[in-house]
């Protein structure tokens, strides 16, 4: 369970998040949509403590992310994150990319870490690429590698920040399929996305961000079928 209360975030004097209240129960798939610059990425960064916050609280499984004594490194092990830019470690093979964190963060033995990595890579369809360096992988494959890398930490939550935005159109499908698979497995997911079909078909709820607030949050059927807010209506009509 992720609980966000009164979250405010500033960059200097620019207020990017203006009081966010949000509960994400275990097993939910929440999609976040909204215009560029509305604060979607920033919210994800605040959830896993990559950005400091100025007011409010974020708690993950009962732990206050931004409290002084919180071990964020430990907390982040529970939260996988996948970015728009896949950020594969270029100096490591696919297998080593995935095995690194289990080994150094979780202290798994080399053999254990390799087993976990191989398993996760097979899971995302990269079972035949174990010893390949990222430079020899397509964007879609690298993004699936990033997903496997996050999953190898056996997280309870997965945060996706426009995981498909940087991909060539023909590669989007394979990554979305991987995310669908994860959703079907019951993973708790927060997906910032521009893929409306994904938001509609896969999520339990969709949140519409507008200028630092959640202007509307509801089931996909209601968000896409009967949008209430004017901004959401406009946003959706621009996309279609």
């Amino acid at each position, binding site marked *: 369970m992720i609980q966000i209360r009164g979250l405010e975030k500033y960059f200097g004097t620019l207020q990017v998040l203006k009081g966010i209240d949000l509960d994400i129960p275990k097993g939910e798939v929440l999609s976040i949509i909204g215009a560029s610059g509305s604060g979607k990425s920033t919210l994800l960064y605040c959830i896993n403590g990559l950005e400091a916050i100025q007011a409010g609280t974020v708690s993950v499984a009962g732990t206050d992310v931004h409290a002084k004594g919180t071990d964020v*490194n430990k907390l982040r092990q529970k939260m996988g994150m996948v970015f728009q830019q896949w950020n594969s*470690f270029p100096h490591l093979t696919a297998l080593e990319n995935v095995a690194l964190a289990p080994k150094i963060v979780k202290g798994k033995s080399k053999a254990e870490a390799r087993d976990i990595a191989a398993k996760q890579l097979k899971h995302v369809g990269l079972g035949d690429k174990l010893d390949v360096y990222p430079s020899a992988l397509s964007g879609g494959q690298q993004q699936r590698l990033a997903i496997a890398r996050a999953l190898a930490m056996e997280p309870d939550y997965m945060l996706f920040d426009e995981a498909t935005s940087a991909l060539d159109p023909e590669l989007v499908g394979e990554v979305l399929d991987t995310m669908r698979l994860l959703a079907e497995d019951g993973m708790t997911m927060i997906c910032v996305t521009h893929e409306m079909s994904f938001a509609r078909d896969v999520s339990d709820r969709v949140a519409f961000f507008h200028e630092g607030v959640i202007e509307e949050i509801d089931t996909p059927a209601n968000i896409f079928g009967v949008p209430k807010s004017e901004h959401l209506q406009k946003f959706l009509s621009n996309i279609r």
Partner: protein
Amino acid sequence: MEPTMSFFSGFQPSDLLYLAEAAWRTVLISVLSISIGTFLGAIFGWMMYEGKWAAALTLGPVLDVFRSVPLIIQLVLFYNFAPMIGLNLDPFLSGVVILSIYCASLVANVARGGMEAVGQPMRRAARSLGMSYWQDLRYVVLPIGGRAVFPSWVGVALGVMKDSALVSVLGYVELLKASQILITRTQEPLLILTIAGAFYFALSYPISRYAATLEKRWAS
């Protein structure tokens, strides 16, 4: 053989040994200075990258001084003024101190460039996996940034090795100084300088070759 007997005498086989010994001293002072300089430079570079303006305001200008004042001036000044503050260092140690600082001032920029080359997104990805700040530095920033700036670092290292010849002004008999001594005695500058040049080449060529091999391996 008996230098007192004839001040001017032709080049003898034993002179080659003399040059080889001097070359060894060049290697010694270079390896020491480059090692210390790289270690310090990496720390300075990290401080400038992380400390941002605080380090940029204090450390930056100091390193700029060492980077821009000709090495020979630094050496002579340090060697002559160090005793005043109670530091009685022989030419070798004086050379190591100055060459190390000089090397560090150059490596600092290289190191900072390496950290910048890794980029915020990559580091956030590492941290999002639960890596601590230091694990990110060790397992992500060092290998990725290190490879990115490795060619520049090799350039700095080879430069420092050549510049170590300047320590001869303090009387340290390294390769260049030894050549000068032999030239004075034998009056065969072309031969001796050719040999000395060959020594320098023999020292740096394997390093460049090895570096090129590494780069090629990393590129694949």
